[in-house]
């Protein structure tokens, strides 16, 4: 997996899946849904986020519902990785299942909006360009590495289905 480099978008604690994928846009296309991602917290985010940018949350990032559109909206906007002090359990699983690296980063509070970050999700290495700080965190769990390396659960299931005799 290649290095992820981009600007940091910093959010606070308890960012829930309802604000990442608002119910009002459930029946709309994924493009439309993604345009409203996190607008209740930061209206500029969906407009200005660039491919490779990194979302940095506080505690319990992705708390709430099982809606996978929360994780998909972020991948749709090109977000390269999500770092947070802790994650809501279903969001965490969803993110990895869509090939979006999610790392528990106890030092998330030291990141400022717009900081340039470089993340090695496999090794668990986070570099903050401005301050020069380098953090080591737990990388992607070993039992999920093959799945995330394959690009997520779907590509991984494809490999598995194709391996089995028909």
């Amino acid at each position: 997996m290649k290095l992820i480099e981009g600007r940091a978008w910093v959010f606070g604690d308890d960012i829930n899946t309802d604000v990442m994928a608002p119910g009002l846009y459930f029946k709309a296309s994924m493009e439309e849904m993604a345009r409203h991602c996190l607008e209740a917290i930061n209206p500029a985010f969906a407009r200005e986020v660039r491919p490779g940018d990194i979302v940095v949350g506080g505690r319990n990032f992705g708390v709430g519902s099982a809606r996978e559109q929360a994780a998909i909206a972020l991948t749709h906007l090109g977000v390269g990785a999500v770092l947070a002090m802790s994650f809501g359990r279903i969001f965490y699983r969803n993110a990895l299942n869509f090939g979006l690296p999610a790392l528990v980063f106890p030092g998330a509070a030291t990141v400022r909006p717009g900081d340039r970050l470089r993340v090695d999700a496999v090794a668990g290495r986070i570099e903050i360009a401005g301050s020069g700080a380098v953090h080591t965190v737990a990388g992607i769990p070993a039992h999920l590495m093959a799945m995330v390396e394959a690009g997520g659960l779907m590509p991984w299931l494809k490999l598995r289905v194709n391996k089995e005799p028909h």
Partner: protein
Amino acid sequence: MPRTLTEKILARASGHPRVSPGEIVTCRVDLALLLDSGGPRRIWPRLKELGVGVWDPERIVLCSDHFTPAVDAESAAILKLTREFAAHFSIRRFFDMRGIGHVLLAEQGLLTPGMFAVGGDSHSSMGGAFGCFMAGFGAIELTGVLVTGEIWIQTPETVRVNWSGHFARGVVAKDIALFLCRELGMENGGRVLEYGGETVRNMSIWERMVLTNMAAELGAETGLVEADEVTLQALRAAGRGPATDALDWRSDPGARYAAVHDFSATDLAPQIAAPHSPANSGPVGSFDSVRVDQAYIGACVGAKLSDLHMVAEVLKGRSVARGTRLLVAPASVSAMTAAAADGTLATITAAGAYLLPTGCGACAALGAGVLAENEVCISSTNRNFRGRMGANSAQVYLASPYTVAASAVAGRIADPREFLP
């Protein structure tokens, strides 16, 4: 070595002699709940892409509840696709517009103690009231389950939450749930909340389901209640003869808990969660100046038959305040039917309530009852995140059905204890 109920179920489902907290295991799924929201419409295209069918249609329960009844062409298409999926894969347990999935599982007696179940919805934890392990996952993972019949779990630690004493009149399980959101916080990842103690033992299965439902708000892996006579009674009422080993699915005496909390229900006041978080809760007294535009009785957690009974108790001989609207969306068709038969609906509608169709509705801004900018709502649902029930500036307060009904009568947030004999 003594084991918790969760460890016993995960060991059985993963085929290991024993499992310990932290251990990652792959479990065989006994039952998978799919809903119209994250079900066929998201999963079927993926199955087509993979060129495979489902592993076992007999282990799948499919319910249309989020987009029912259709309010536009898009929701109609989702419901149609859900029906086609059920027919295509011969899913016998398909409940089309019969109620909210989590409640239907209980009404149908489809969950049994010791089971390992998954659902494509975060409130799947509700099923844990039957002494089984049932947790929620995203549609992408349910796709994996449908293909392989398996899912990975990191064995959670168990936190025991004991309640003793008797509730004051007008105080119910929902008040406990809102109290715990504040007391234990919403960040209980990697933990199962096992509810017990005298207060929980004395609860009906429907009230226990409120506790396990809102384990989702507490951020827990899931919630559960050990099986007892109440559980078996509920299964018999649904026409299922419980298995002979049903009562063995309990934590062993001396099992290791990550923490044990002891609370007393005796002095618990009705609780309110203020916008925009279930953890933003406190006793009702601190909110009595809050004027209410809409009072909502709805959702899996808050519109079961037992909840409708609470509402009728308060509304009997009273009327909804001018300038306030009370909307009631029963959680299932059988709850609605029973409430019609026993006079509950007559009491509720005579008081001026507006009856809505069964389904998730306004709970997640999917159906009727959505809020306008800056409107204030008191709701028997489980989440009040910003924008969840409509406009971003809408203010949603969470409370028990008793408190919602009392507030509808008062036109402002009110203490139900003043409305009950």
